[in-house]
């Protein structure tokens, strides 16, 4: 049991790491990775939703009639997303201002619905939590790393939490602003995918 738990958890960190391996949930990936901080925030919010929706769907998997399962999943996911949104507004308002409209979009994030459909609705609660946690942390890591690349190139800083950069290039550094813009997200994602494939090929 412990072994399969570990397996479900670790697969989300490399073998099926979203968005690179699954290439799912690209909308938030492209939109919020302007900085590491935003990436982590979005990742944590998604992880929260993922874990709880996985848990609940796994618990209810024998009750939910298969014909209306997608509707039920959406209701469950949407509930958790709204809760996350309200909590963020109440406790981390600054982050909420940055992530803004992308939080409600977690509802339609393919990763969340995908895990609900592909995993949680077929597996036990413990495994579903491990899966949700693994995928969520993998997602957070991807967002943070893409955020780091884009923030570093595009702004010359790396900000992990709280608005103060932990790393900053000198005043002479003229940042590659393109990477902060939306097209830079595509280019950055493409180059990272290319790197991952180069590493994974061996």
């Amino acid at each position, binding site marked *: 049991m412990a072994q399969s738990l570990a397996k479900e958890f670790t697969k989300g960190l490399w073998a099926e790491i979203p968005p690179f391996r699954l290439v799912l949930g690209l909308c938030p990936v492209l939109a919020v990775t*302007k900085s590491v901080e935003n990436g982590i925030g979005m990742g944590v919010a998604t992880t929260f939703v993922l874990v709880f929706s996985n848990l609940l769907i796994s618990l*209810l998997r024998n*009750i*939910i*009639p298969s*014909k*209306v399962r997608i*509707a*039920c999943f959406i*209701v*469950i996911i*949407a*509930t958790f997303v*709204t*809760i996350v949104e*309200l*909590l963020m*507004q*109440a*406790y981390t*308002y*600054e982050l909420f*201002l940055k992530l*803004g409209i992308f939080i409600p979009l977690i509802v339609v994030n393919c990763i969340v619905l995908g895990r609900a459909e592909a995993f949680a609705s077929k597996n036990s609660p413990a495994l579903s939590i491990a899966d949700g946690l693994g995928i969520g942390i993998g997602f957070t890591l991807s967002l943070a790393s893409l955020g780091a690349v884009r923030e570093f190139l595009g*702004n010359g800083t790396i900000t992990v939490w709280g608005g103060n950069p932990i790393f900053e290039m000198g005043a002479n550094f003229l*940042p590659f*602003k393109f990477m*902060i*813009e939306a097209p830079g997200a595509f280019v950055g994602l493409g180059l990272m995918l290319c790197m991952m494939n180069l590493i994974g090929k061996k």
Partner: protein
Amino acid sequence: MREMISMIVVLAVLTSVSGGLLAAVKSGTEVRIENQVLKFQKAPAIQDIFPEATNDPLAERFTITTEDIELQIFPSILADGSKAIAFETKGGAYGGPIGLMVGINLSTDEIVDVRVTTHAETPGIGSRAKEDLSFVSQFSGLKMETNFALKSGGGVIDAMSGATVTSKGVSVAAVQAKEIYQKLKPEIVKQMK
């Protein structure tokens, strides 16, 4: 038929439980959220606009409701004793709406100062509207009759170089503030006593 009923029951229960849950969370966080909005968005702007206010504009805020607008007004008494108000308007820009807090002196009808509250502009380009005060300080002391449009649009405001759309958003918000003010001034004065 059995399946049908079970479908309806499950969905109904699920939605009502989630509805209830959301209502509970919402009511639990409502006050805190409002405070957060005030604290992070409006308070700094108001502090900047009325640095020497002798009252507490945040605490004395009130809301004016007419048929089509609902407006939160922050009244202030300036150092020289004259009355002023501040309220927020929105103007569309590059990355979404720009919120602009406009402070107006009630007795002279002049703009005290304006501050950008919320924006989603590109860092380093449009975001200068918030950080670089030389742009917004152009509004200080302008009469309400002035045309707040950009110079290229026939007004008096110089656009930030390289950030025309953001500048335009700010100016649109200012023009909107002017219209609201001219329309609601009697009501505001009445409420302030």
